Each structure stands twice: as C-alpha cells, then as structure tokens.
C-alpha cells in the first residue's frame, strides 16, 4: 500500500525549491507571535488557549492542510505529468494512500510541531493546553489532508474550494450558525483535545464519540473515493 518512490517524488514536489521556505514561514510567524505575547502578557492560560485555538488550529492547520493536501496531487494532474505515474504498474489506491501519508506527515510537521512549541512558549504546557492543541492539530491534519487530497483529484480549482471550506464554512458559518459547527473538522478535533485537556479552557460543540466516528468516516471515505476518482481520471486540456 505504500510506495517509497511515489513518496519521494511527492516530498520533492511539496518541499522542493522555495516551497519549504513558504510553508515554514507560517509556523515561524506563530512562534514569533507567541514570543511577543508571552513577553507582553506573561504566562496566562486563557490567552494561550485563545491564541492556539484562534490562530493555530482555526487558521494555520487548514491552510497548511490545503497546501499539502492539494499540492500532493493537484499540480501533477494540472500539468498532465500524472499520466507517467499512472502508467506505472502501481495500483491507483496505492498512489493515493502514499500521497496521503506524505500530505499528513507534511501537515503534521508544519502545523502540530509549531503548535506544541508555541504552547510551551505561551504557558509552559499549563493545564495540558499545549499538548491538547497539539493532539487536535495532529488529528485534524489527518482529516484535512484526506479531504483536500480528494478535492485535488476532483477539481482543478481544488485550492479555492479547500480555502472556501476552511475559511468561509468553518470560520464564518461556524461562528454564525451553530449547526455548521457539527460538520467541521476543527470542532471534531477540539472534541479530542477537550478529552486530553479535561478542563473548561478547551471546549467543543461535538461529543467525543460523534467526533471520533465522523473523523474516521471522513478520512476513510475521502481516501477511498480519491482512489476511485484516480482510477477513472480523464485528462482534459487547460480549463
């Protein structure tokens, strides 16, 4: 199910040349802000929770997920070089699964790791906040990567649709319509974080059983359907 060559090519496509620098700029910004906030405010649990929840989990993880998830397959389909990959004796689901693993790894490294560091800078993991948000970032990395990888195989405008989901649906509708929060990767991962932290600082609108089931279902379904889409992929011209 895992092909090292495909993985190596995908890593190169995602992190090659200057892309790693741009991907690295976001986590760096988070850490810089954490240092500034710590210097201004001192160690404060509520502030740490607000910053990690609002900036790291709500904005940074989805954006890195979009870049890694769609970037793992989108550009190849876009410029047509995916035919050389598809013509090799590899199962299409294997290709998808390998690319998913790579996308998950990249998202985790560039979002969960800085979240942990920022959490420790902000309040030294008081009340398990840093660990809780790191777990949330890890969990949501998996779901986001699977979801956006699927989008990459379905549409040429995957990045836009991914961002519409991440920014408009989760951030805007999520804050206005309570029902939209049930269908949001962010809330599902917060439910897991709530279990880890245990306190009232990290809260979610979704119960843990529902969240876990939805996370697993979304990840598995998205991966399976992406494999199916890749089996019947037709290459069209530019637009």
């Amino acid at each position: 199910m895992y092909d090292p060559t495909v993985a190596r090519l995908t890593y190169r496509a995602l992190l090659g040349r200057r892309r790693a620098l741009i991907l690295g700029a976001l986590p760096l910004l988070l850490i810089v802000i954490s240092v500034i906030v710590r210097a201004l405010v001192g160690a404060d649990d509520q502030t740490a929770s607000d910053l990690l929840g609002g900036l790291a989990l709500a904005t940074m993880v989805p954006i890195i997920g979009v870049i890694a998830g769609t970037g793992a397959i989108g550009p190849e389909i876009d410029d047509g070089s995916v035919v050389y990959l598809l013509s090799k004796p590899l199962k299409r689901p294997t290709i998808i699964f390998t690319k998913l693993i790579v996308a998950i790894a990249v998202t985790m490294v560039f979002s969960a790791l800085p979240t942990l560091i920022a959490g420790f800078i902000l309040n030294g993991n008081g009340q398990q906040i840093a660990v809780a948000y790191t777990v949330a970032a890890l969990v949501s990395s998996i779901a986001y990567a699977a979801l956006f990888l699927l989008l990459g195989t379905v549409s040429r405008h995957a990045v836009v649709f991914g961002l519409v989901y991440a920014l408009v649906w989760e951030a805007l509708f999520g804050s206005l319509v309570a029902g939209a929060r049930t269908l949001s990767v962010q809330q599902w991962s917060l439910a897991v974080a709530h279990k880890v932290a245990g306190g009232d600082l990290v809260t979610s609108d979704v119960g843990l059983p529902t969240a876990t089931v939805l996370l697993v279902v979304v990840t598995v379904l998205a991966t399976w359907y992406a494999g199916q889409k890749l089996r019947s992929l037709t290459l069209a011209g530019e637009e």
Partner: protein
Amino acid sequence: MAVENPVTAPSGDQTRIHNIGYRTYDGPRLGRSYATRSLYSQSLRGAYGLGRSVKSKVLPMLLFVVMCVPAAIMVAVAVATKANDLPVDYTRYAIIMQAVISLYVASQAPQSVSRDLRFKTVPLYFSRPIETADYVRAKYAALASAMFILTAAPLIVLYVGALLAKLDFADQTKGFGQGLVSVALLSLLFAGIGLVIAAVTPRRGFGIAAVIAVLTISYGAVSTVQAIADAQGSSGAIPWIGLFSPVTLIDGLQSAFLGASSAFPGAVGPSSGEGVVYVLAVLGLIAACYGLLMRRYKKVGL
C-alpha cells in the same frame, strides 16, 4: 539492386528566390498604447471569466453575487423597517466582507499572471511593441479595476437603496463618497499584494494558497495581538499593531480620515497623527508592489 540516379548538381546561376505573391502589410500600425489597452481589457474581462470557459466564470461570478446579496438584504430590511439609517456604514461593508474579497483576489491574481509564466507566453507579449512597464501597468490596472467593481457594486446597491428609502441625501452621498475612496485604496492595495505573490510562482494553486495565507494569517495574527493588547489595557499599542496587515491598514486609514468607526478591539481607531502613518504605509505598499512587479518582469522569461 539500387539504381543510382545520377545527381545533377544545381549550378549556381539557376538558383533564384521565387516571388510567390505574399504582400507586405501596409495597413495602420496601432502601436504600443493600443496593445496596452487590449491587454488591459482582456485581463479585466478575464478576471470575471468573460471570454473564457463556463467553468472559469462560475467562481468570480459567484463571489460577485455573494458580495452584493447582503447589501440587497440590508436595503430591504432598511426599507421594510423604515429605519433612519442603513444597518451598516458604507466604509464598514468591505471590512465585513473581507473573506470574500480575499478569496477573489487570491483566485484571480494567479489566473492573471501565473499562466503567462507557466506557458511561457510572457516573451510573446514582449515581442509586441509593449514594454515591461506597459505589461505591469495593464495587469495591475486590470486587477485593481476588477477589485473595484467587486467592492463598489454593493456600495452602489446600498446607496441606491438608501435613496429609494428616502434617507437623508447629503448624509448618504457623503458616506457613499467616503466608501468609494476607501474601496479604491483597498482595491489597489490588495491587487498589488496579490499580483506580487502570484508573479513569483508559475503554479496557480500554490499562488492562490500563498495570497490567502498572507492576507488571512496576517489579519488573524494582528487582530489576535490587538485583542490581547486591549485586554491588557495597553490600548495605545493597538493602532501601531494594526500597521502589519492589509485589512487593518485600510480599516485604520478610513477610521482616521474617512469617518468610519473602527473595527479594532475596543473601537480605538488611530488618531489623525497615526492616520498619516497609515496613509504613508498604504501608499508606500502600493508603490512597493509596483516596483517589485517591475523588477520581476525586467528579466522574466528572457
């Protein structure tokens, strides 16, 4: 058995160039400014998907509708309830809808420049009479105009609705004018930032994500730090922090000079003195974007 045909060597006096009747072009040459204008109008149409496939019309048109519908609803509410004022200021509207505006500039800026880079058509443009500056100016003006159409249309809806609802004419006209100035600056600023980022990468998808990341992450970071500064009681720092993201720049500028109420935490907008810094920052950023684009296209594809 191969038959060797005797090759008759062409002797020099028999070669000649045949005149096969091609005619030279002796019509009018429309020149540099015409080419620039064509590039401008094609890019502007392209920013709304006109002259492109149906699929590429969907997104810009959808965002345009999403921009205008809330304005129409506000007008309908104001007319139905016979309110004395519109529920939202003209200057505030673009700040509320910033997610839509960011998505528009992120999707259309790479569309405008990245594909020229990727398919290596930039040298073809420069084989025409246009210069680097013409190309940059045409693309910048086209995207800024498209953004202005996107952001000014809902203001027109609000204004017409306000006049139909017989709200105070002078008051509404003043607010409408201030709103137009604010969205014009916003269009120039966002278009510049979007184009600079998109012109660096030939990959469309990556350009979109990079533009969105710069616009939303900087806003998220700035407003988070502002909220913390507000909670800590150091409200003097809030306007200075606002200098670091495009949306808060426009917000601060219009609350200092265009009579807008600030969306900053604690509603502390910058004072007039700080407002001058905001104006300088906005103009400086626009000039810097133009300069960076010129620098980028000096040697691109050649």
